[in-house]
């Protein structure tokens, strides 16, 4: 079963396909290249037994012949090619340029070898010329990459030493070509963070191992990528920016404007933060109200977000809420809803004042409690009717703040519900207080019945001898409370259930707000617009392989998963 060929191939590079390799099927191929006999002659050390790797940028695959410029990492036995210097050039100028780049980037950039992009069979003169270059720019090992124009066959030789040695000398090693996209590698910022200021000038490969060294090399050689082919410099380079350094006039303008705008916004936000942090708001009644109103929590959250990032994305744009007719409709609908709720409550109280569910209530207490709550509702309704002319304007101003996001609008809704059902909350508090008092009284008198007492000092129940009159009054009160218990308990139960209903609705709204807050919208946006910011590691693909040719791999930057689901295949390499 062969690998299914994937979609768009890179320019000049093909998809992998199965190729039969000659040889007996059970033979174990010898992967360890024999080390050259002259180990002491080697100018550069290499990792023990490692195969030679050459990292080649994909943008240079179609460039004209020239010199390969880059960095040799001996510990990894890999050569990272950064650019190609085209003919004609003067060797002195090339060396000067490299010295400049070396100084700017604190990294050893040298000429690594030659690159030959030709039409047909090599001309003898070109071949000798290329070999002669090896004498001018001495580097061990010296790479000779070659590609035929219009075909996918590459060849790569790496020689250990120069000189009039025969080509079949044991100085040639097997090379593995790995293609990488310079722009993506630079933008993904997979390289380790910038070195500490107290490190010496020179290679700092001690801490950067493996592929991190490659990324580090590419990231630090910005100075080499500054010149494009429109420059009139002495040396003509080919790299990812050689068609023109990436820039945009809009970006430049935005950069100019960004400074003052950011400053202004920062001042404004700091003023607001300072105002909200002043001591007045921390006093008890106000701080209690702030903590109860979910709008304040959400506004605070929003303020924090804005101070961190100036361009917070809106979860949803509720621009419709600011239209007058919708606000009017909402305001018109609000009053009848409040009336309806109050009416339902009145029905409920009438039912309680009768014989609810067949239970027989204590008539006097029933009437008292019922009338008390009914009066409350009456007050509430008058209040709402008093406020009705202003509701629309209040709602409109409140709706303005919904431009801060759907979550703020939901929080405001939650607060409106809380305010509208304030009377239910009051009833619950009254009922709960009465019930609580009754239960405390009952428990205390029950202890009296049994001849015990609660010892406050010792926080336990002690026995106590009561006088006769104490016992008498205690028993009377106990009886009264016990017979009034069902009434109070029923009122308590009903109002607790109502309160639970309101709390459930508010809780659902808060859940929704939390859900929206935790949506990875920022990551989704990044994924769409700038996927390289979510880069997490690399992946390799084997390209078309022919026997006798070097192995070619394509290195791509892989994007991390934005949702924290258990995709076992994706993890960040250290």
């Amino acid at each position, binding site marked *: 079963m062969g690998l299914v060929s994937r979609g768009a191939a890179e320019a000049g590079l093909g998809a992998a396909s199965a190729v039969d390799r000659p040889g007996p099927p059970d033979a174990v*191929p010898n992967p360890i290249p024999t080390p050259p006999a002259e180990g002491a002659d080697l100018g550069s050390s290499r990792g*023990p037994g490692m195969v030679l790797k050459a990292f080649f940028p994909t943008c240079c695959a179609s460039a004209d012949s020239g010199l390969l410029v880059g960095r040799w990492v001996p510990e990894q036995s890999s050569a990272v090619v950064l650019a190609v210097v085209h003919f004609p050039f003067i060797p002195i100028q090339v060396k000067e340029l490299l010295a400049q780049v070396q100084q700017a980037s604190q990294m050893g950039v040298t000429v690594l070898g030659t690159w030959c992009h030709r039409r047909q069979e090599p001309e003898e003169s070109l071949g000798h010329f290329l070999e002669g270059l090896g004498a001018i720019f001495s580097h061990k090992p010296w790479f000779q990459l070659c590609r035929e124009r219009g075909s996918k066959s590459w060849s790569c030789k790496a020689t250990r030493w120069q000189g009039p040695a025969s080509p079949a000398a044991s100085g040639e090693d097997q090379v593995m070509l790995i293609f990488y996209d310079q722009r993506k590698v630079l933008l993904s910022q997979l390289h380790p963070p910038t070195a500490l200021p107290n490190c010496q000038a020179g290679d700092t490969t001690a801490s950067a191992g493996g592929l991190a060294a490659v990324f580090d090399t590419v990231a630090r050689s910005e100075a080499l990528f500054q010149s494009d082919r429109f420059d009139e410099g002495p040396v003509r380079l080919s790299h990812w920016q050689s068609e023109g350094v990436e820039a945009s006039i809009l970006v430049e303008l935005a950069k100019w404007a960004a400074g003052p705008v950011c400053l202004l916004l920062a001042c404004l936000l700091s003023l607001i933060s300072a105002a909200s942090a002043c001591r007045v708001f921390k006093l008890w009644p106000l701080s209690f109200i702030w903590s109860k109103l979910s709008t304040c929590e959400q506004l605070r959250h929003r303020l924090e977000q804005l101070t961190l990032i100036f361009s917070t994305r809106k979860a949803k744009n509720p621009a419709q809420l600011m239209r007058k007719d919708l606000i009017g409709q909402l305001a018109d609908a609000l009053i009848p809803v409040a009336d309806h709720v109050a009416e339902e409550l009145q029905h409920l109280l009438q039912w309680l004042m009768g014989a609810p569910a067949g239970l027989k209530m204590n008539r006097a207490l029933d009437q008292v409690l019922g009338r008390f709550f009914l009066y409350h509702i009456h007050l509430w309704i008058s209040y709402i009717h008093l406020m009705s002319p202003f509701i629309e304007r209040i709602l409109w101003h409140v709706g303005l703040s919904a431009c801060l996001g759907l979550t703020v609008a939901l929080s405001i809704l939650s607060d409106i519900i809380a305010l509208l059902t304030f009377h239910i909350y009051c009833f619950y508090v009254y009922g709960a207080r009465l019930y609580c008092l009754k239960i405390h009284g009952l428990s205390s008198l029950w202890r009296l019945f049994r001849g015990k007492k609660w010892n406050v000092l010792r926080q336990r129940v002690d026995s106590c001898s009561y006088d006769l009159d104490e016992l008498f009054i205690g028993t009377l009160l106990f009886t009264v409370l016990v017979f009034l218990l069902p009434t109070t308990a029923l009122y308590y139960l009903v109002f607790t259930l109502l309160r639970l209903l309101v709390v459930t609705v508010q809780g659902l709204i808060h859940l929704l707000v939390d859900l929206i807050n935790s949506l990875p919208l920022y990551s989704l946006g990044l994924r769409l617009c700038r996927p390289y910011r979510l880069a997490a590691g690399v992946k*390799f693909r084997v390209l078309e392989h022919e026997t006798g040719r070097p192995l070619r791999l394509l290195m791509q930057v892989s994007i991390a998963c934005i949702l924290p689901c258990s995709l076992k*295949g*994706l993890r960040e390499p250290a």
Partner: protein
Amino acid sequence: MEDEQSFSDICGGRLALQRRCYSPSCLEFCLSCPRITLRSLTAVTCTVWLVAYGLFTLCENSMILSAAIFITLLGLLGYLHFVKIDHETLLIIDSLGIQMTSSYASGKESTTFIEMGEVNDVVINEAIYMQKVIYYLCILLKDPVEPHGISQVVPLFQDFGASGFTRQQGTRRGRILTVFHPGLALAVSNSLSRCCRF
């Protein structure tokens, strides 16, 4: 060089291992699972629709049938995209690293690449699964803090549950194996030991 062998996983399903050698320093192992069969697909679809039809006769609401169709379609798409793995590939590149790719039936691929510098060792580990002992191949990663310690164990070919295979004889850790018949782990770990010098 390519060769193909077939094995069976711990649940009895058929697996095919294909080994491909691109160069002396690059090896690839591809483990493939049988495709989704028409019989199982038909069975699941019929079950779902029978249940939906049963509900429909109870409730007389035609929305149930539409909902059943949607559920079947979405469930199938989700299964193909998130659950059903077509093949898993292990690519070993000398002195670069080890890459594991899982390809799902819908074409999605998820890749993990482990650099050679992070790999401590490749071992065959034992696990008790239900009533038998299975062996699976896993990579031990180095601990950045302690040079000889192990920070993480990464099982290979995990999504199949297939790397576990039953065998007759015992096995020792690492590269020295006495295996009764050429097994999955032998093929892979021998190649790994040749390719990765650690």
